[in-house]
């Protein structure tokens, strides 16, 4: 024989080495694989039904159409600037410095809760006022309030289902009535919201309407006591209602009549609202924005919001800001309302997208170029 056959010992050694390599590589592959899989699961890549902020932004884009550079909801808006004069009464409820007697600079945004930045103002849609209070100590309070004190749905899954059910059919341009009816049949809270929307008089101006926190929050006082609250901005300007029957005529005369009215009023004088805090009583639900608290709840006027001027978004401080309801100063905290996380996540997704798309051309005022560049007293 030309070769000597390997000894049994060397064969065994070789086998042992090979086994070590195989089990070693197997262990490595398993460890890396399990971690990668866990990461993929955490990222939601394996669970398409989990709703991310981006998923909700997708749903809004399908519902509203794509308007690059604009928010994914409440697209049509303008920036406002002013201040908040605290009367000090809020200090008993919250240690937030914004409630200490004195003045806090404020900026914000008035908007229509319509899906297009170019929609006419004469629509029976809610309106919104979003605000940023930046206190002298560096703390920030942001709130995005709606003209309707309720939300049509209590959680993000229902919100997505509602958006899908009311997304216009590309052929007819209208939502499928059967889908809308099926959603409404299953959601008494949305029917109640719609009934409220239909019966509520619509303010004739951004300036004479009230705006509400929608969700419950917690105020924490200097002693550490937490109270469930909601808040509203109630106008000093006398209320007058729009005639729903005349929307078409008003839009024909000026599609941006609400925004133009705001600019015009602010050119004349600052506009004022009172920040009114409503205290929950024991048993009031804080986890459901479709449930109102009884009107008998204690309300405390904690100060005056003074809006001095309005600016188109490209010229104002509000466009590149999210009025994230989780941006809260010490003394104000989130409640157990699941919508707060959802709003925060979706607003963040909206900011990511519109920032990446580049600044929008500016509306209202870009489609019908009618708005003044700035209203300064």
């Amino acid at each position: 024989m030309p070769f000597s056959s390997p000894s049994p010992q060397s064969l065994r050694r070789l086998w042992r080495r090979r086994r070590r390599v195989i089990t070693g590589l197997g262990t490595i592959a398993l460890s890396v694989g399990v971690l990668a899989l866990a990461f993929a699961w955490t990222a939601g890549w394996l669970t398409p039904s989990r709703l991310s902020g981006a998923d909700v932004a997708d749903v809004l884009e399908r519902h509203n159409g794509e308007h690059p550079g604009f928010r994914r909801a409440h697209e049509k808006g303008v920036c406002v600037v002013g201040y908040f004069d605290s009367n000090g009464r809020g200090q008993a409820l919250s240690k937030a410095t914004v409630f200490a007697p004195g003045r806090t600079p404020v900026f914000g945004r008035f908007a229509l809760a319509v899906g297009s930045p170019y929609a006419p103002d004469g629509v029976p849609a809610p309106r919104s006022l979003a605000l940023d209070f930046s206190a002298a100590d560096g703390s920030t309070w942001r709130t995005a309030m709606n003209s309707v004190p309720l939300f049509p749905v209590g959680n993000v899954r229902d919100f997505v289902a509602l958006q899908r059910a009311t997304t216009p059919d590309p052929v007819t341009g209208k939502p499928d009535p059967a889908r809308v009816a099926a959603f409404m049949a299953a959601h008494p809270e949305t029917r109640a919201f719609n009934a409220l929307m239909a019966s509520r008089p619509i303010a004739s101006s951004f300036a004479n309407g009230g705006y509400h926190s929608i969700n419950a929050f917690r105020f924490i006082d200097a002693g550490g006591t937490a109270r469930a609250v909601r808040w509203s901005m109630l106008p000093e300007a006398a209320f007058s209602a729009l005639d729903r029957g005349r929307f078409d005529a008003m839009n024909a005369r000026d599609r941006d009549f609400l925004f133009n009215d705001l600019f015009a009023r602010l050119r004349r004088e600052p506009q004022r609202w009172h920040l009114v805090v409503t205290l929950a009583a024991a048993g009031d639900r804080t986890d459901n924005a479709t449930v109102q608290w009884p009107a008998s709840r204690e309300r405390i006027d904690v100060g005056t919001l003074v809006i001095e001027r309005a600016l188109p978004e490209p010229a104002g401080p509000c466009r590149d800001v999210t009025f994230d309801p989780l941006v809260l100063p010490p003394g104000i905290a989130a409640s157990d309302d699941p919508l707060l996380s959802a709003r925060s996540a979706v607003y963040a997704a909206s900011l990511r997208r519109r920032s990446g798309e580049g600044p929008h051309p500016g509306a209202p005022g870009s489609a019908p170029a009618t708005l003044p560049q700035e209203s300064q007293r």
Partner: protein
Amino acid sequence: MSTPVPLFHARARLLHWMMAPLVVAMLFIGIGMLSTTSSAYALLLAIHKPLGTAILVLVLLRIHTRFRHRPPPLPSDLPRLQRRAATLSHWLLYALLLLMPVSGWAMLSAAGYPVTLLAGIRLPPIAPHDAGLFAWLRGAHHWLALLLFATFLLHLAAALFHALVRRDGVLASMAPWLGRRRR
């Protein structure tokens, strides 16, 4: 004959094993909070920012330690390519560990968010409030995080390769409790 393996400096080992679980947790928290609109979002976001700040402090200490105390030499029989890969991937890890918290902090600044840590403790902005800059930093933060996770998996695979296949004591130089003898 077996010889005891040289160890990383005690401070390097302490920082390494403090940072390892924090960084891995941070990667999962970051990608996890992006995936959800549930109440977990608020919780994960509230953890992400202070934890990122803690990691920033730790990585600065770690880099300082790296320059003060050279790591033990790699086994002399390690193929050149693997040696290269080890050196490169370690500097990549240091760079990513530094860039992740800095880009996160900068991107929140560029988005005009207050950078709130715990109980009203805030960091000052380190970038101007600028939407275009935010979009760029946000993209960087995201892709660097995925690169960091991939680099971490490579790092883990390499450590296990040294321990289980080569059995050359390289893992033990960071984890002496595994036994300090080369076989």
